[in-house]
């Protein structure tokens, strides 16, 4: 499968994603953090496009970058920024953090070295117009149960949010 764009774009988008992700945790102003997260999500959408998945890329932008992050920003805009900027940004749990990131790093390394048997050698290339149909087929034929479980989970979350938000139902 030939890539849809030169490798340069992969590195560019990856850099944007990683730098954005780092800025999310290092910025003191929560609005700036949220904006960095939007850039990360958009860069991920670009990476999906490079993998011949325009539908996933579109949904990534509409739902995550355009929907969920707006609600994040919505809440953050009501927060008192001056007070949050005076608070301590990093806590003291270095040891746990180092152990967790090392474990994750070793997992990545292991998959990278020995994981070639997990991934298909020649990924099935999909004709672009059929991509959305293929996603639908996969969801409703092969993965119907996980799909329904996920939607049930979301329903429970919605009901829970309503219960928490309303004092009297």
């Amino acid at each position, binding site marked *: 499968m030939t890539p849809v764009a030169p490798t340069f774009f992969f590195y560019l988008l990856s850099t944007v994603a990683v730098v954005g992700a780092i800025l999310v945790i290092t910025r003191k102003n929560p*609005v700036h953090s949220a*904006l960095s997260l*939007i850039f990360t999500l958009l860069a991920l959408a670009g990476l999906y496009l490079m993998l011949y998945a*325009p*539908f996933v*890329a*579109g*949904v990534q*932008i*509409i739902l995550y*970058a*355009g*929907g969920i992050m*707006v*609600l994040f*920003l*919505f809440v953050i*805009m*009501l927060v008192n920024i001056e007070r949050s900027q005076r608070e301590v940004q990093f806590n003291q749990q270095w040891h746990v953090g180092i152990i967790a990131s090392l474990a994750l790093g070793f997992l990545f390394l292991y998959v990278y070295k020995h994981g070639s048997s997990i991934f298909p050698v020649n990924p099935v290339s999909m004709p*672009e*117009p059929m*991509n*959305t149909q293929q996603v639908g087929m996969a969801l409703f034929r092969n993965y119907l149960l996980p799909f329904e479980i996920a939607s049930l989970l979301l329903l429970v979350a919605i009901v829970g949010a309503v219960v928490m938000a309303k004092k009297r139902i």
Partner: protein
Amino acid sequence: MSGNLSVGWFVLISVIKILIAVPILLGIVAYTVWLERKLVGHIQNRWGPSRVGPFGLLQPIADGLKLFFKEDLTPPYVHKALYLLAPILSLTLALTSIAVIPVGGWVTIRGARIPLQITDVNVALLIILGITSMGVYGVALAGWSSNSKYSLLGSLRASAQMVSYEVALGLSLVGVLILSGTFSLRGIVEHQLGGFWNWNIFGGGQIVAFFIYLCAAYAETNRIPFDLPEAETELVAGYHTEYSSMKFAMFFMSEYANMVTVACLASVLFLGGWSGPLFGPPVLQALLPVFWFFLRVLFFLFLYIWVRGTLPRFRYDQLMAFSWKFLLPLAIANVIITSLVVALRS
């Protein structure tokens, strides 16, 4: 699409198309403002602009000059970077979405078939939805970075409203997608060619979806009766209270550019795009579809202004209830019925 074109030619043709389309869009934006002032004037028994040029036709140019030469004021208490970014973001996104709108069929120049559209992509509808959903940030950031109560309240209202109505808007399009089976706007129009009985609004039975789309689109573009984000009696001017000169003009232009995009999308999705009678020599045959398309867009812009001159503003709780308790169930019912009909027919 570019099967018989080299990359260089493809880029050149795209640049030419952009250079034609964007000035036309900006021209339409300027003259929609003129049309609005004129029509609302007549609806309210006034003349509207009548001094600058015949019928006030040069008024947009005078307005533009005025906005260019006004003092560009940046209040000292704003968050500078985001305050600058917000109007740029709004206008850029508003102008970007025109790239995937098809305004006509194909033209053949020296054996190369060129679509009358800046770029013909397979997921055009998703791109437009993505761009409009990103457009919320322009409004949200403008309100927050202005660091003023009116702006913040306006932008909170705007983002809540836009997120709510986006759900109904997206679902109202699903019926059309089921009927045509593609995300490509060109494909959707080509599915409706051959007479008005093939249009999605009549032949596809999408008249309910059309109504939902119109309501949601008016809310998305912050127009009366959904213009609470900039309700001047309560919020001064909403999210752009602290903006002046060209920065204000950029918000203004992006609002009207969004109106044009919404009108284009409504024509493409429900009213058969550029379909219409073709006759005459080849040049006329190539250009007539564009004319039919612009006629539809003009109709929608007129409708926008007509509604503005007629309806009062919603109350905020009515606005939210209308979206979540009326439009959303209606849109879901429309999706279910349309898919049932399509499934039973095949």
